[in-house]
């Protein structure tokens, strides 16, 4: 086990996702006690003191996000769980939705109590089937049991949760794009200011948190901020659910204590590289995180600060393991096709840039690369960095620059020799 566990603390059985078994594990007692013994401010303080960082990709301090919402301002507040999980390589929120939906619901209710939110939404990507059925069923169980819809006990606190299905758009995973979609429109992200916590869903203060972030709230409230901080590192307290895929013997979702050694995680916990091949590279946190070479991975621990120092990020925790013999040019082509397909089209640099980059990489793969193509890709990436409405443009740029930084020789080879050094091999 890669360190201490906070979420994956129960055996998976045929009914472990149900309300009955969640209750049997002690579920909803934290909520009951908190509603009677704690104020909303105390919940927020606990989450802030715990140093919980958003687990949706940006690692923004959750308490700091919540603090922008003004208590008692006379407006409706909304809480939205971002279950859009579209970052390629990422499937860890899915684990929570399928196996621990009530952990999410209890976390949402505690958070809604803290934020004075009467209505909550779970925005779940349209392609999810079983995770949707499980979370929808959990919501119905919660309504039937009185956790939703009417005041809980004699607390006076009541909340409704709507499970809202997306319809196929990666950009709906971006918080403001998500809200546009939740308003029944195309998921166009919005410019900030104003922050969503000031004007979000229908222009009301809205907190959008990742599923895993919310699923940590009950534990923090139950055991306290200090207990949470005792796990992980100073700068990255707690654990992360890491989804491992690619050339790996045992792909799947693992809960990793932050600070755990990376190479050990791959070799021991995940069974090592597929077929015992040498490791070439790892994409740590979804394809929008910068690829790192095997040598770079060698000395790193899985924490937010170490990855940031290494010029990458733990991102969404979508780890893709890449073995030697893989053509990085072909991999980048798949990534750029993705960004091109998913760009919403609103802003100039991303709309035109993602298409441009895709066309360039297509030419390189087809043996029609030109010497200036590498500089062009860097140029497009540079002018998508910090110039766009949302992070999609930046992300496409980061993916490209990192690939070029670390594996430039492969791209130069493809351009010069009009073929892949590895025959385009990616399996």
């Amino acid at each position, binding site marked *: 086990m890669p360190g201490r566990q906070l979420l994956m603390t129960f055996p998976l059985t045929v009914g472990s996702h149900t309300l009955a078994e969640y209750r049997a594990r002690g579920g909803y007692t934290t909520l009951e006690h908190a509603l009677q013994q704690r104020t909303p401010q105390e919940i927020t303080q606990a989450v802030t003191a715990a140093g919980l960082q958003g687990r949706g990709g940006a690692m923004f301090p959750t308490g700091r996000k919540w603090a922008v919402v003004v208590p008692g301002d006379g407006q*409706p507040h909304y809480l939205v769980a971002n279950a859009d*999980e*579209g*970052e*390629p*390589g*990422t*499937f860890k*929120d*899915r684990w929570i939705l399928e196996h621990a939906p009530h952990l999410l619901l209890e976390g949402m209710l505690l958070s809604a109590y803290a934020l004075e939110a*009467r*209505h909550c939404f779970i925005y779940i*990507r*349209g*392609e*999810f*089937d*079983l*995770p949707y059925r499980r979370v929808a069923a959990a919501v119905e169980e919660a309504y039937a049991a009185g956790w939703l819809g009417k005041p809980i006990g004699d607390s006076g606190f009541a909340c*409704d949760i*709507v499970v*809202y*299905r*997306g*319809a*196929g*758009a*990666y950009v709906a995973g971006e918080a403001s794009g998500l809200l546009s*979609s*939740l*308003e*029944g*429109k*195309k*998921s166009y992200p919005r410019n900030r200011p104003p922050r969503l916590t000031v004007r979000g869903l*229908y222009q009301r203060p809205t907190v959008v948190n990742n599923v895993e972030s919310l699923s940590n709230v009950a534990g923090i409230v139950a055991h306290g901020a200090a207990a949470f901080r005792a796990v992980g590192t100073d700068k990255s307290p707690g654990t992360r659910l890491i*989804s*491992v*895929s*690619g*050339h790996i013997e045992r*792909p*799947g*979702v693992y809960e990793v204590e932050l600070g755990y050694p990376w190479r050990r995680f791959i070799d021991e916990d995940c069974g090592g590289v597929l077929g015992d091949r040498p490791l070439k590279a790892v*994409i740590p946190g979804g*394809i929008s995180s910068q690829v790192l070479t095997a040598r770079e991975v060698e000395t790193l621990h899985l924490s937010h600060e170490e990855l940031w120092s290494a010029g990458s990020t733990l991102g969404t925790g*979508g780890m*893709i393991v*890449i073995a030697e013999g*893989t053509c990085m040019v072909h*991999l980048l082509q*798949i*990534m750029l096709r*993705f960004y091109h*397909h*998913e760009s*919403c089209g609103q802003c100039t640099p991303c709309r035109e840039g993602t298409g441009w980059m895709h066309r360039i990489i297509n030419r390189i793969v087809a043996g029609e690369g030109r010497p200036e193509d590498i500089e062009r890709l860097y140029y497009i990436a540079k002018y998508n960095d910090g110039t766009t409405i949302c992070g999609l443009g930046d992300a496409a740029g980061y993916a490209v620059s990192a690939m070029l930084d670390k594996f430039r020789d492969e791209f130069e080879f493809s351009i010069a020799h009009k073929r892949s050094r590895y025959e385009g091999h*990616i*399996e």
Partner: protein
Amino acid sequence: MNPLKLELEALRARFPPGFESSLVLPCLRRIQQQRGYVADADIDELAASLGVPRIQVEEVLSFYTQFRRAPIGRAHLQVCRNVSCSMRGAERLLEHLQRKLGIAPGETTPDGRCTLGTVECLGSCGTAPVIMLNERHLEQVTIAVLDQLIAELK
């Protein structure tokens, strides 16, 4: 649309007041589940009943990949071809399907049995390669699994 209308009214009751516009996506999904696609008349009716501009419904239908305005084959096979699935053989599976079904992505077999498509990451990378068959996810798909599937298509 009448039994559907009741269902959609129940759905509306779950949302806070003033959220009529939000109902566009769930209503379209439900209409498509019933009809197989969204027809022009559905658009007029939905826009009128929710009080949203017709153009909003048209835009939504066009923006999201899961909505369609024309019928497709009885089986909708969508192959994920993103990074992790491609690293575990998705491209080979797609080629195999194209050959066996005789159609390219985006097309439907002449007998209407099957429509082939590609999708982006389905959030199932650990059990790659993954293919959606209608609403279901098929995981760790092999050529053998595909051949069996095709044989069973009606």
